[in-house]
């Protein structure tokens, strides 16, 4: 992850960061190799997401001022390690247990909010996931299982810092120290790996599956609406971007909640878009002063990109979601249609915050646009890569 | 290329029943109008104005365009002995050509904004009057509309004929006073130039306007000189009725044409739909 250029703040000692970077790289390598086998297993979609995340980290490191590149490289490698670990560990309680130290490590980065506040999201997610898994597995009345399914669903939402578990994000808070590190980088891996594992292992009874799907659907629609309205009304740039993450996450949650092949594929593509497009854009937005109206075509194109129009990354997500929702129930698709129409509204507000980047910023923006184009034009290739 | 057809159309447009016949009928109608208004002196004055308007036409390109579109409209009327088959006529084409001619003249005659509203409403009602019989018979050919004699359509034709007669004074600019609430025409608009423009326009409009109404309402005459004379007589008669209605209204001091035309247009439409449903 990278940071917004901000007034210098207290930095962690270099050796800790270097250690985090080395450990992160090592863990990533182990996860890619799947060693030790049995304990670590990286599913194809998570592998694709990890590859995209590497690109994002590389871009982020290149974008920041040279003085901070080593620090950001270490942070990025550490983040990749955490991502790989969360995606590879097969045992849900183990994932829950690992969320706690990862959450503390992320919260320990110097930021505007104290560690005791930053940690709330990850630990809540850890508890919900662990407890949910226990209830799913424990014998007893059926409502316990439904409660467990609810726990799994809410755990994903809490990890992402989504509605109703929204986290504070300060105006001048670096992205890697704020909760956006979870929303835009770490949580997508979890949200991609966990439901896939649950579905593959048939751990959910039908009624539990219905509960999980319904909760994710409902919260997905809520996040979609909340994100659009919030991004439009937000007073600060960071707040607006945080809300824009909710829009993408809304689509992803709905995709997962549909528990359907196309829905999961849509969620997968949405996650890739969050990591490859939305997160780098936050960094670029932080590098340039926002303006009323950008007159350069690249900036103008951003509105289209953020609105999810073709040929950018949002289009296939919408197509697959509509397909899955229509197959399930057309009223749901109608609701989704309204959400998609609303989602085009917040694009202008966000595009203005990017302003007119120059130098590295302009190149970075172009790279993001190209990545979005690739995601939008070749979703079938990416689905094949992710085994979806 | 059908050069023969083009020649015939050119002949029809510029001579008969186009520009020449239009001019001749126009002069006749203007004189008749003058007689109805001020007797013999009025006739002399009307003839003088008509001849001057024709003289002034040479230097005014808009006047030529007005004349061109009026002639185009006249070609749509089912005038016997026309060089082109009168079955080629198209009511909508004639109505629109006439409207273009009138508005072109309005563009060239500033200070007449006050008449715009009446003129537009008159044109709309006139279109209803001519279109209503077409609704039932699904045809826009004036000749076939005139030939229709289905009993169910007779009331529609009578009502639409009446509506047409009410609208013609508005089209021809015979109703003088501006509508309340509208700016009065500037002083010079009442001067000789405006009067000349009004006469020039009326001369171009008498034949196509009255001729179209006659073509739609009256069965087509036989294609021989007698038929042609009979058609022209009916046209002049229609013009006389129009001029008389204006003269009477002038004596009464009020012009109820528009006030009567608007409700009548609604009635005509209702009757046309009913007739179409019956037939």
């Amino acid at each position, binding site marked *: 992850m990278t940071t917004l250029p901000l007034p210098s703040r207290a930095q962690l000692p270099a050796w800790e960061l270097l250690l985090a970077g080395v450990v992160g790289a090592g863990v990533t390598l182990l996860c890619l190799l799947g060693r030790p086998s049995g304990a670590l297993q990286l599913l194809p979609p998570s592998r694709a997401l990890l590859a995209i995340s590497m690109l994002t980290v590389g871009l982020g490191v290149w974008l920041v001022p040279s003085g901070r590149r080593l620090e950001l490289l270490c942070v990025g490698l550490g983040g990749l390690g955490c991502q790989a670990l969360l995606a590879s560990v097969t045992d849900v309680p183990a994932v829950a247990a690992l969320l706690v130290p990862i959450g503390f490590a992320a919260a320990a980065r110097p930021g505007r909010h104290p560690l005791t506040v930053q940690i709330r999201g990850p630990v809540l997610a850890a508890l919900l996931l662990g407890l949910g898994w226990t209830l799913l597995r424990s014998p007893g009345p059926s409502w316990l299982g439904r409660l467990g399914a609810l726990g799994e669903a809410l755990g994903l939402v809490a990890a992402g810092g989504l509605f109703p578990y929204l986290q504070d994000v300060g105006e001048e808070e670096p992205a890697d120290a704020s909760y956006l590190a979870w929303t835009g980088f770490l949580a997508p891996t979890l949200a991609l790996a966990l439901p896939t594992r649950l579905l593959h292992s048939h751990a959910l009874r039908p009624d539990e599956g219905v509960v999980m799907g319904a909760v994710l659907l409902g919260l997905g629609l809520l996040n979609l609406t909340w994100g659009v309205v919030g991004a439009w009304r937000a007073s600060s740039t960071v707040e607006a971007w945080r809300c824009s993450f909710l829009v993408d996450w809304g689509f992803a949650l709905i995709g997962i909640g549909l528990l359907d092949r196309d829905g999961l594929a849509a969620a997968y593509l949405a996650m890739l878009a969050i990591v490859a497009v939305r997160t780098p854009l936050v960094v670029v937005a932080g590098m340039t002063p926002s303006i009323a109206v950008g007159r350069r075509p690249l900036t103008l194109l951003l509105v289209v990109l953020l609105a999810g129009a073709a*040929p950018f990354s949002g289009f296939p997500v919408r*197509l697959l979601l509509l397909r899955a929702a229509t197959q399930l129930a057309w009223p749901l698709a109608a609701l989704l249609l309204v959400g998609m129409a609303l989602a085009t509204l917040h694009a202008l507000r966000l595009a203005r915050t990017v302003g007119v980047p120059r130098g590295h910023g302009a190149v970075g923006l172009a790279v993001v646009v190209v990545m979005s184009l690739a995601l939008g034009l070749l979703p079938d290739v990416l689905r094949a890569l992710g085994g979806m | 290329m059908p050069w023969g057809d083009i020649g015939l159309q050119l002949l029809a447009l510029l001579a008969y029943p186009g520009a020449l016949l239009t001019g001749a009928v126009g002069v006749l109608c203007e004189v008749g109008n003058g007689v109805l208004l001020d007797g013999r002196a009025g006739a002399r004055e009307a003839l003088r104005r008509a001849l001057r308007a024709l003289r002034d036409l040479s230097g005014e390109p808009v006047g030529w365009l007005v004349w061109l579109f009026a002639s185009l409209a006249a070609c749509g009327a089912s005038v016997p002995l026309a060089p082109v088959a009168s079955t080629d006529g198209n009511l909508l084409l004639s109505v629109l050509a006439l409207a273009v001619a009138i508005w072109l003249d309005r563009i060239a005659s500033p200070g007449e904004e006050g008449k715009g509203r009446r003129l537009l409403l008159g044109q709309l009602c006139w279109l209803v009057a001519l279109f209503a019989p077409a609704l039932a018979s699904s045809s826009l050919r004036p000749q076939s509309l005139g030939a229709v004699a289905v009993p169910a359509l007779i009331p529609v034709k009578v009502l639409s004929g009446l509506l047409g007669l009410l609208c013609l004074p508005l089209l021809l600019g015979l109703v003088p006073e501006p509508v309340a609430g509208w700016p009065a025409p500037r002083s010079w608009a009442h001067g000789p130039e405006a009067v000349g423009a009004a006469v020039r326009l009326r001369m171009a409009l008498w034949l196509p306007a009255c001729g179209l109404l006659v073509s739609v309402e009256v069965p087509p005459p036989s294609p021989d000189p007698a038929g042609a004379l009979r058609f022209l007589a009916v046209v002049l008669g229609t013009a006389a009725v129009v001029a008389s209605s204006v003269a009477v209204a002038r004596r009464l001091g009020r012009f109820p044409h528009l006030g009567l035309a608007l409700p009548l247009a609604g009635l005509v439409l209702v009757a046309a739909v009913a007739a179409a449903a019956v037939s």
Partner: protein
Amino acid sequence: MPSAAMLAPPALLAVAAILACSLGQLAAQAGRVIGALAAWLAIGVEVAGWWWGGRVPLEFTAPISLGGVPLGLKLDSSIFALQTVTLLALALLLTFQPQGSGRAALASLAGGVALSTLAANSLALTALGLSACAGLLRVALAWDEQEAVEAAWGTLSLAWIVLLWAAVLLEVVGGTSVYSAVPVTALQVPVFLLVAVAALLCTGALPWRTWVSLIWARERPAGGTLALAVMVPLGFSLLLRAYALGAGEWPASWLHSLLTGLGALTALAAAGRAQAAGSVRMMRAEALPLGAGLTLMALALGTPLGVAAAVLSLGGLGLTTGLLPSLPDEGPAGSIGDALVFGTPPALVFGGWLLCVQAALEAGPMTGLMGLAGALAWLVGLAAVARATWLPPPTVPRSGSLTGFAAGVGLLLAGGVGLGGLTALVAMPVASDLMSPSSHAPAIPYLGGGVAGVVAPSGNWPAGVLGGVVAAVGVALLCLAGLFRRRGWGLRQRSSEPAEARARGHRSLPILEVGPFLDLSWWGLPVQAAMRLRGLRLPSQYRSLVRLRALGAATMRSRPWFWALVTVALALVVTR
């Protein structure tokens, strides 16, 4: 090779876009010249390819997919007609509107994408193309100025999203959205309604002021022209496709009446706005909605004559789009252009509209009434043109382009005079391709066209002979009188004053307040009612009961009590 002829026009425009981008640095106008050449060349290739390809439908399927949609293109008579209309407007725009290389490249690219979208062989691909077009047009519009950009963008975004759902519904119901493979029964009323909504949003054929009108109020006309040149044919292509999907019929007969009535209402509303416009530009802005309304009215009739008339009227709309930005705000040239685009004979617009009204009249008494409404709107439009000459000219009048004006008017008149030929060679094949012969076999022969003109059961229009004579005499009169050299006539003479003087209010003659001919203020009642509703507020004494702002704050900040509340509530819900 036939498929090459199908791919060549969009490819030409795409290459032109790349060249314009790269060579644009050399000369300011290089991009525009390249784009214009490519557009005219594309027209030539399009016509030649279709003609010498035997005028038979072609289909090309690529083994790849874009945006999750299989890629395939199709060329038939309707696509040929629509692509040509788009290209004509685009060529006029690129040839006569001064613009930098970047903008020209963007226009060429948008044109290329639009041609491919028109040729898309599935509804899903059409939705994708529409989305891409909307994006490019948004960039083109916002590049010039912000005026009306969001209105256009919002409308077009809604259009592609709705169309995307229609495609998905079609896939779910019929198994595919490929036009040639969808079973006829799959086109059900909901799918059709979605397609129709998308079409109406794109074409602005709605009885209120849409983006199509708003776009002309901008200072720079190029972006708006591009948007309309691309979107209006694209929108109408959706309704034509609906005929193809339903084997010449729409899923229910009431849909025909609904859209026909909507078309007539649109035309009336546009004409009403035109005759009440406060400026020449606002009046011109209603030319397209008026034409779109009449086109929709004819297209929705469900008869071959209606479809043929709609195609011809669409041709007039395309040329109107290309001509309008070249019209000056003042002087006789502007008035002549206005008159022609509002349906003065013998231009193509007139011919198309005439056939639209005749088609409505022939379809039955009720549709005949709608045709009458269309004719009334037409008359009001002509009156609006006259009224516009009395309106005060804009503070900064647009000078237009005399060559663009000449080219546009020339094409309009040529199209009008050649209406018979266009009917026989373009419009009738479209109608016979789309309408199933079984249901409309007797209707086809009743529409005839040739050099002499058009022959329809309800009335002929000898466009080739009488129209040609009128055009020749009219042009000759205007040239002989040297009208184009004169500054203006009537009140127009005031417009010879310098713009600055007018801006300062110094005038040599007093300006009359030109009110609308017909007072249609009641038309805005729904809008006023909506504004009233928006203005409603909760009475102050009850505001303390509902503190949405406080709730919002609690949700936006990390408040554990709120989390616990939501979690417990959800737990109670799922355990019940």
